[in-house]
């Protein structure tokens, strides 16, 4: 079991530029069921993907792949023709919010938006639009979602993952890889790893992921990786206190970040004295979360939380 995506998940891709093409190729190599692409001016054509299988992915496949991915004009047409339930968005920032809304209107269950740099005003509108559609959005500005050995959607390196027992949720990209790598090394592995993204306005939040992992029978524990800015970690801490039945470990980046400076991510900023790492760590510890003192100790912190 897993959350959000599994070996049966059919995925379309919006945005077939250099980045979209590269990561679509990596996903196909991993064994993800990529079934179509959306490009308004290239409909009717196909995009060829061929290469060597990534054997860290879905087991039981040959050593190479060769796939003619069909291209559609609209998301609706792609869904009708392929039965896809998930879209991954690599569309450039000025057009990405529109791509998200198009996917929502087509009724996709899950939209994973990788694009970094979408104007906040656009995301405010897209988020409002999603409010009266049933789609779940993950991202934007995130590495994506992966269920190891089943389905990889996004830009994360597949081979550091291993199927296992821990749910991973994170606001940061490379720090997620760090956590995943350590979980693999200590032998816990992952059920599903979800990057929720570093922007101030995003779709799925910590609480959504914690709830899904709490209900997933295969997930035995959760690690959450937060960072400075906003109050999402504090809100998650309150939810954990009231609802979480599984052990949770955590790490918060930015203990040494100066106030008022945007630390790379649009959302990672301490403003008006709010959103400090210390506040978040205190809130999570009070909720019973085992906090890793350094990013090197995330795997160890998860093991400790499981033993408690």
């Amino acid at each position, binding site marked *: 079991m897993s959350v959000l995506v599994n070996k049966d998940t059919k995925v379309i891709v919006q945005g077939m530029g250099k980045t979209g093409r*590269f990561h679509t190729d990596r996903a196909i190599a991993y064994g993800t069921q990529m079934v179509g692409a959306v490009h308004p001016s290239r409909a009717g054509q196909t995009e060829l993907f061929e290469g060597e299988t990534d054997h860290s992915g879905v087991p039981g496949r040959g050593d190479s792949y060769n796939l003619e991915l069909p291209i559609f004009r609209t998301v609706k047409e792609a869904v009708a023709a392929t039965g896809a339930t998930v879209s991954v968005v690599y569309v450039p*920032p*000025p057009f990405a919010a529109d791509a998200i809304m198009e996917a929502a209107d087509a009724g996709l269950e899950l939209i994973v938006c990788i694009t970094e*740099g*979408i*104007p*906040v*005003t*656009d*995301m*405010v*509108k897209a*988020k*409002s639009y999603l409010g009266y559609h049933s789609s779940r959005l993950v991202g934007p500005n995130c*590495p994506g979602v992966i269920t190891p050995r089943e389905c990889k959607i996004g*830009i*994360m*390196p597949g*081979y550091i993952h291993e199927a296992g027992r821990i749910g991973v949720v*994170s*606001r*940061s*990209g*490379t*720090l*997620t*890889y*760090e956590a995943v*790598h350590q979980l693999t090394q200590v032998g816990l592995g992952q059920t599903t790893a979800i990057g929720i993204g*570093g922007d*101030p*306005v995003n779709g799925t939040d910590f609480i959504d992921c914690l709830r899904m992992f709490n209900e997933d029978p295969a997930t035995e524990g959760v690690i959450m*990786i937060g*960072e*400075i800015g*906003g*109050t999402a970690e504090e*809100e998650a801490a309150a939810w954990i206190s009231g609802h979480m039945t599984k052990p949770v470990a955590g*790490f918060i*980046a*930015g203990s*040494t*970040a*100066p106030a008022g*400076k*945007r*630390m*790379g*991510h*649009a*959302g*990672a900023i301490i403003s*008006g*004295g709010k959103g400090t*790492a210390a506040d978040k760590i205190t809130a999570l510890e009070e909720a019973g979360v085992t906090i890793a*003192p*350094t*990013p*090197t*100790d995330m795997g160890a912190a998860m093991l400790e939380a499981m033993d408690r």
Partner: protein
Amino acid sequence: MKIHEFQAKELMAARGIPVPHGEMVTTVAEAMAAVAPLVEAAGNPVVAVKSQIHAGGRGKGHFAEYPELGGVNVVLDGIEGGLEATKRRVGELAGRMLGSTLVTVQTGPEGKKVNRLYIEQGIDIDRELYLSIVLDRSSSKNIVMASTEGGTEIEVVAEETPEKILKAEIDPGLGLLDFQARELAFGLGLEGAALKNGVRFIKALSEAAVELDTDLIEINPLVVAKDGSVLALDGKMSFEANALYRHPEVQDMRDLSEENAAEIEASGYGISFIKLDGTIGCMVNGAGLAMATMDIIKYVGGEPANFLDVGGGAEKDQVTAAFKIITRDPNVKGIFVNIFGGIMKCDTIAQGIVDAVAEVGLAMPLVVRLEGTNVDLGKQILDESGLNILSAADMKDGAQKILEATQA
């Protein structure tokens, strides 16, 4: 991106939002020449001389060169002495303020050099209020915040008397509705002409925020004048970086002299860089990992010299530029490179490091921690380079090694 008060007022005035008359000046002569037309147009002998820097707390700040002199000065000399007295005093103030260093709670102890002044008409103030528009992350909407406690720091009001802050959400599709603006104006205790003007002001400001993609608009104080007009006495605006591409008129307002030169240079390479006060330079891929690297340096007892995210798709050019920027800081005594290669391959980074060192030289310890795609190839390139590079097993090991190396 931040802009100056005079620019914020220019943007507001262009959208029909009332602001006092004023003139931006950069010399004493310009300052004196600005006085007469302002006094005449306003029919008020009082003017204010306001420092223009990208930091708040100007009124309560002081000049390093003239500790008794604040960053904002109201000139009352004209009430008795007439226009000539005002001009003389403005000239005197401008002579001292221009080119001097203003230190406020937001500038840090080093302060900021004042290159521009804003000469503004005086207002007969009845009441001072507070108004701002900011993104509320919990609701994913922009909200208008208003308070009767104008002129004071809003964080203090929020902490001590949160009931004095009124809030209204701006609907992303519909904008701020008329009744919401009325409720806010009633809540601020506005009546008569001031009520009508206040409603109009709040509506117009909320439209400007959406149109201009602002991160923050803060009017503190928003003043009600004795004649019932409602004006922005101060105006702070900052803009969301991701949306700047669609606002060329705002991009033109960028004042590079207010920003850190190294940070500007880094952004040209797609590198996100923030200078800090420590001695250990860091080069990392990914913002979260870059922050975590600073944290772990501090954890083992060191002090990071910077935040540096080379970005997800960094190549040799970015790595070389990053090295140059880090080593230019005279406080840096050693460098810690921490890369978790995903899309970015470790061999590419390793080759970038070797080439960069060949180009810029290396007169200090360098610790490299590589993990991820093609890690073995990467380590091999570093080993065979003949360079004096210490290899780290993990982040903590790397942080300890660079600390020891810089203390040796």
